[in-house]
């Protein structure tokens, strides 16, 4: 396997049609009665030194994507290509050697550090196991890493519980950096931290990205954090990516109703905010029984509006008010197959038949190149 530096023009990591299902077991003999489709066909590329933000609500499968890429949770199917090599084909010692290049930073700074090990050992053990350094040389490396993440050299002799949450997250970052990886999965790295500490950690991660040309898969539920940190953003809903675009483009011009809802629901530190709010009704359905058709259709405001207008036969253009600006969405009524009534959250709505019966593909939308969304209405 080649250990050469990653080439900028080639994707560092290619994920294709990744699926991770968890069996639901019942009874004495643990019969499998169904599957939770935590990740259901996710594809993306990550380029060296770039950040892909993965955003979604709890249970949408974003954490499982991160763990599956690192094979901490074994994926059910799909392919993961790291620098042109099929990562899923590696076994045993070879796999462990390759793991060096792909690291992870966890959300919970308490449970992610072994409480029974000193910080120096937590950071130093991988260095020694991978034969990067040993003895005094290793200790020097640990000291340099600790200094880099803003801690003291002498902290190597302390136990994790002696540190505050932010400091522990710094230790977690030092551990991830110890093997000089070129790809790090950041799984909600700041959501357990105090506001005044969050920005320190985000700045540190951004500096490291620049210094060491590290690519991140940045998983978070906070849209502002994701937007701030990422080059490209993918929005996940029920195990699928529903929209993917460059960060600026996605926030300025969302094409999927779920993205619009997420953006408008996020509280902003501005008491005079006048922008309207699209609050999707109901709740995220269970991944064990996802709705047929477009998984978002029971909560979708666009398909309801479109269905109303189609019912009245008035117009083929739906107007969507989003963040103060009105977006016009043209709607070819003919090929949606009419409307139908569904029940969601105890209420009955009329939606487009196509939304309720056929799953929309993730396809390019008008606007900036590379803006993909999976929606029948905003075609």
């Amino acid at each position, binding site marked *: 396997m080649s250990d050469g530096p990653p080439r900028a023009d080639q994707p560092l990591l290619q994920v294709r049609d990744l699926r991770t299902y968890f069996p639901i077991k019942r009874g004495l003999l643990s019969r499998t009665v169904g599957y939770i489709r935590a990740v259901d066909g996710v594809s993306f590329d990550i380029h060296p030194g770039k950040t892909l933000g993965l955003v979604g609500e*709890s249970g949408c499968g974003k954490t499982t994507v991160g763990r599956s890429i690192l094979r901490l949770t074994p994926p059910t199917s799909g392919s993961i290509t790291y620098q042109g090599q099929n990562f899923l084909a590696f076994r045993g010692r070879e796999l462990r050697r390759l793991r060096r290049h792909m690291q992870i930073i966890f959300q919970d700074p308490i449970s992610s550090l072994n409480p029974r090990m000193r910080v120096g050992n937590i950071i130093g053990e991988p260095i020694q196991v991978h034969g990067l350094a040993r003895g005094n040389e290793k200790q020097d490396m640990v000291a340099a890493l600790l200094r880099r993440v803003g801690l003291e050299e002498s902290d190597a002799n302390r136990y994790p519980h002696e540190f505050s949450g932010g400091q522990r997250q710094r230790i977690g970052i030092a551990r991830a950096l110890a093997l000089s990886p070129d790809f790090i999965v950041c799984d909600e790295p700041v959501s357990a931290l*105090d*506001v005044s500490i969050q*920005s320190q950690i985000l700045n540190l991660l951004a500096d490291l990205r620049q210094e060491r040309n590290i690519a991140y898969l940045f998983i978070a539920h906070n849209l502002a954090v994701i937007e*701030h940190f990422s080059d490209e953003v993918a929005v996940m809903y029920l195990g699928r990516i529903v929209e993917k675009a460059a*960060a600026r483009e996605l926030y300025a011009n969302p094409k999927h109703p779920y993205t619009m809802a997420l953006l408008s629901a996020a509280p*902003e530190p501005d008491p005079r905010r006048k922008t309207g*709010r699209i609050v999707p009704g109901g709740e995220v359905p269970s991944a064990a029984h996802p709705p047929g058709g477009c998984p978002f259709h029971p909560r979708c405001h666009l398909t309801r509006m479109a269905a109303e207008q189609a019912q009245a036969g008035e117009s083929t253009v739906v107007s969507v008010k989003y963040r103060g600006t009105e977006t016009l969405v043209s709607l070819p009524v003919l090929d949606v197959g009419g409307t139908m009534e569904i029940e969601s959250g105890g209420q009955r709505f009329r939606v487009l038949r196509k939304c309720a019966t056929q799953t929309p593909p993730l396809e390019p939308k008008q606007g900036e190149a590379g803006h993909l969304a999976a929606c029948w209405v905003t075609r």
Partner: protein
Amino acid sequence: MQPLLELRNLTVAFDTERGQIRAVQEVSLSVYPQQTLALVGESGCGKSVTALSILRLIPSPPSRVLGGQVLLEGRNLLDLPEKQMQSVRGKDIAMIFQEPMTSLNPVFTVGEQIVEAVRLHQNVNTKQAYEIAEQSMRDVGIADPDKRLHEYPHRLSGGMRQRVMIAMALSCQPKLLIADEPTTALDVTIQAQILELLRALQQQRGMSILLITHDLGVVAENADAVAVMYASRIVEYASVYDLFDAPQHPYTQGLLRAVPRLGAVGQRLAAIPGTVPNPARFPSGCKFHPRCPKMNGDPACAGVEPALRQIEQGHWASCHHLPDFANKPITRPATDAKRAEGSAVS
């Protein structure tokens, strides 16, 4: 106008093996009728202890109220016998917590739990209590309340449980609702639903809300007035507009700059250096001075704890570096400001 709830110099301490820890020091605040006062701060700043002290829900020992008063319509709750306090809890003041998962008892149906709360405070029979429970579940937007009443908490989603908690809290028509991080454990879209529900219920019923949170976004959208707490003290107190337009305390300023905002792609965040102080080892003088950009080696910051002074009409802050700070009057912070109607439309 007479405030509904007034805290006067409340000081709460914990006795630990390593000595006394003052988790809340000289906290004064006022919640006016139909007002939402937000108490904002980071972990360990004492905001939750303040809330629990109002209802006298902190076990004592290890905690002790060292001084101050908690006045509900002029009546000091700290002097009430426990029996009367029980009727205040739930009836006059209700509370909802962050974790809807753990605040509901898993072995009873939600109906049984609401009915128990109703019958504790209202002289009604079980049948009437079930009707009240059903109505209050309908009020918080739960579909099919007659069916949901007979379900166990684990069958409900997080957002639904928080709705049930609110329904239970509001079933006895309290005058004040204390909401301790009501949306922290919820997803963004569910959070938006719950915040909107709280706003709507407040308008319908005219109750007051003491909203405890760390999220400045939640504050900006729901609060009328804001008290910022740092390391056991209130460091700034103002109406929501004054606070977000012209923050005075360097901590508030730092916090507002540190929050990532939508539409600010790729900018570097302004960070507050250092760590949130541990309640057992608060720094001397102004507790923010080790992290403060304005300190510049000023011995006053490290030596003297600044009092909360009235900087201007309806705006209090405690920082030695504010212009003419020493000559500002020390008054009890209270503002009955309300946010403009329709500022957060849906």
